[in-house]
């Protein structure tokens, strides 16, 4: 039972992070139609910038984290200017390749800047644990859940209630008509890249204290989050959050009891089965940009 509680808590925390990651690239996908292969490396970069601001610069947690997220937003805008804006008229595949190039550059930058040795980021809530019925739940996981829930709700509010959200939804539904109606694609794209990168940075900051920060830290998260997005139907935000929770809990619970050494492969297996059964994803990609 203790193990069950601990694993469930771990699964929910993982699900919250996956939801943040998945929403990060979904925002971008909805606003611009780009699937960003650099998202995983942006997560890694966010974690490293967090380590830099908190551990190296010695800033207190909150300003350090805020600075990290602001920097990530600027990097998102930079990526948009360099790898997206010049390619807007090109086929989607070319833009995807450009994001892959951005991923490689970010990777190279991190390895030059921080070297190959893994870094550690201390948890802002300390290394303590909450005891629930004999199971230990790290405070960091609770923090992840709270911050993740706030971020997801805020994001949903942004999408439903603000002009930016309406414009993104309009672009997702019908780019041509949205432009004819006066949606300024350029600014929406920049804002979407910035928001997406900030969400990636937030996810990186939240996960970093649970383990070591190294070069492939974000890539696995991105793929798992992609599984969550596909599972939840690539379109709806709520579906993606649900998919992220399912994937997180499956990975932790099934992985905890059945063949634990293969736990890392479970999201990949779920993903493969979903794609084999529903080749276009659970919803049609072409129609699901809303």
């Amino acid at each position, binding site marked *: 039972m203790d193990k069950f509680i601990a694993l469930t808590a771990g699964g929910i925390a993982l699900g919250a992070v996956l939801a943040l990651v998945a929403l990060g690239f979904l925002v971008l996908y909805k606003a611009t139609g780009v699937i960003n292969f650099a998202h995983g490396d942006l997560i890694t970069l966010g974690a490293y910038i967090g380590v830099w601001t908190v551990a190296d610069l010695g800033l207190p947690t909150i300003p350090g984290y805020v600075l990290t997220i602001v920097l990530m937003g600027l990097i998102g805008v930079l990526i948009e200017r360099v790898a997206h804006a010049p390619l807007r008229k090109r086929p989607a595949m070319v833009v995807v390749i450009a994001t892959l190039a951005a991923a490689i550059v970010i990777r190279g930058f991190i390895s030059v800047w921080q070297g190959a040795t893994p870094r550690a980021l201390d948890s802002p809530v300390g290394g303590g644990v909450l005891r629930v019925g004999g199971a230990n739940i790290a405070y960091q996981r609770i923090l992840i859940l709270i911050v993740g829930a706030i971020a997801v709700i805020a994001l949903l509010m942004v999408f439903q209630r603000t002009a930016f959200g309406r414009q993104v939804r309009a672009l997702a539904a019908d780019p041509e008509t949205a432009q004819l109606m006066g949606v300024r694609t350029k600014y929406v794209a920049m804002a979407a890249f910035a928001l997406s990168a900030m969400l990636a940075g937030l996810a990186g900051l939240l996960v970093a204290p649970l383990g070591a920060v190294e070069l492939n830290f974000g890539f696995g998260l991105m793929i798992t989050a992609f599984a969550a997005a*596909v599972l939840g139907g690539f379109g709806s935000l709520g579906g993606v959050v649900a998919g992220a929770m399912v994937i997180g809990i499956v990975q932790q619970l099934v992985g905890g009891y059945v063949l634990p050494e293969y736990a890392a492969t479970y999201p990949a297996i779920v993903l*493969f089965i979903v794609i084999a059964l529903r080749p276009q994803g659970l919803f049609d990609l072409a129609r699901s940009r809303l």
Partner: protein
Amino acid sequence: MTPREPAAAQAATTPDNANKTDKTNTSETSENQVLRDPLRAVRPPDYRRHHFLAIAAFVVLVALIAPQAATSRSSQFLVNLWLVYSIAALGFYLVFGLAGRFAFCQTFMMAFGGYTSAWITRGEDGQPFWVGAAAAMLVTALVAGVVGALVRKAQHFYFAIATFAVTQVGMVVFQRADGFTGPHGQAVGIDPPQLFGYEFVKDGQVFWLFLGTLGLCLLLTACIERSPMRREALAARDNGLVAGLSGVAVQRVQLVLFMLGSALGGLAGSLIGHWQGVIGTESFHIDLAIGIFLMLLLGGITSMWGPLIGAAVFVGLPRVLSGIEEYSSIVYGLMLLAVVLLLPNGIAEAVRRFADRVVPDRLMRKGVPFARS
């Protein structure tokens, strides 16, 4: 234009009949060429590209130049690495360039091929090298067949992600399945390649084996390039619905190319294993997966020579940047970005365009390797 009867063509071009045939003389020069060689007009454009001549020229050139140029151990190593990566990238060209399948599992196929070959040739009663290499190709083709059949309807990103999932599962399984691979996924003590009693031990000897194998792989690719399969694959890639309605077996063509390309990946993995003597999952990490993708995009996705050029850039670039090696991945990324922005179809296409502009049209027809059809 319709080809004319050879006899009529001869009559039209003989000076005696010039006064009768004013109209034919004033026609375009291209038509004159057709008249002189009616077969040329009938042959499909792909047949005018002299694939086999180009491959022979390539193999002879590399055989003459590489052993002279690569004298040090490290440069011999790099040449071999280039040849063997070219084989893997050529396989990926079949999958991604022709069939348009965004497969992210070529490194998995390489690793699987390497392990299979190592496993089959292991021990006192192990099979000879060529059986191992053949088994590597067979097994990877079968795996690709199963995977490709299961996700046959998945398009673009879904296919990429599904094949990436295969890679991820495969790499974990390789690390755990000690009986098949070795402790911690490290297969060690693989015998050097041996053919007809000749053992390829040193890098300089392995070079000949790799060059020969690459030559054979190029021949295979050229056969595909010249076959209706290329046309069908391109049609299926560019518009699957229309191709399907026109009678192209879209899924079958894509599956066959995926299997063939993966088999080349398996062959490359097997060669790497026997050459190095060890094989481990870390040599087939995500960096190489992106690297193979890079080779194809840098070199050019529209030509079978693209992957070779791209592999040369990929292998050679760290050497060029020897002082600032740690920046090499930044340089790769920026190069990829520059190529995407400036040369949308890669280096091979750019060379071909340049040649088109510089070399007179008639020379091009006579079989310059990159000649446009």
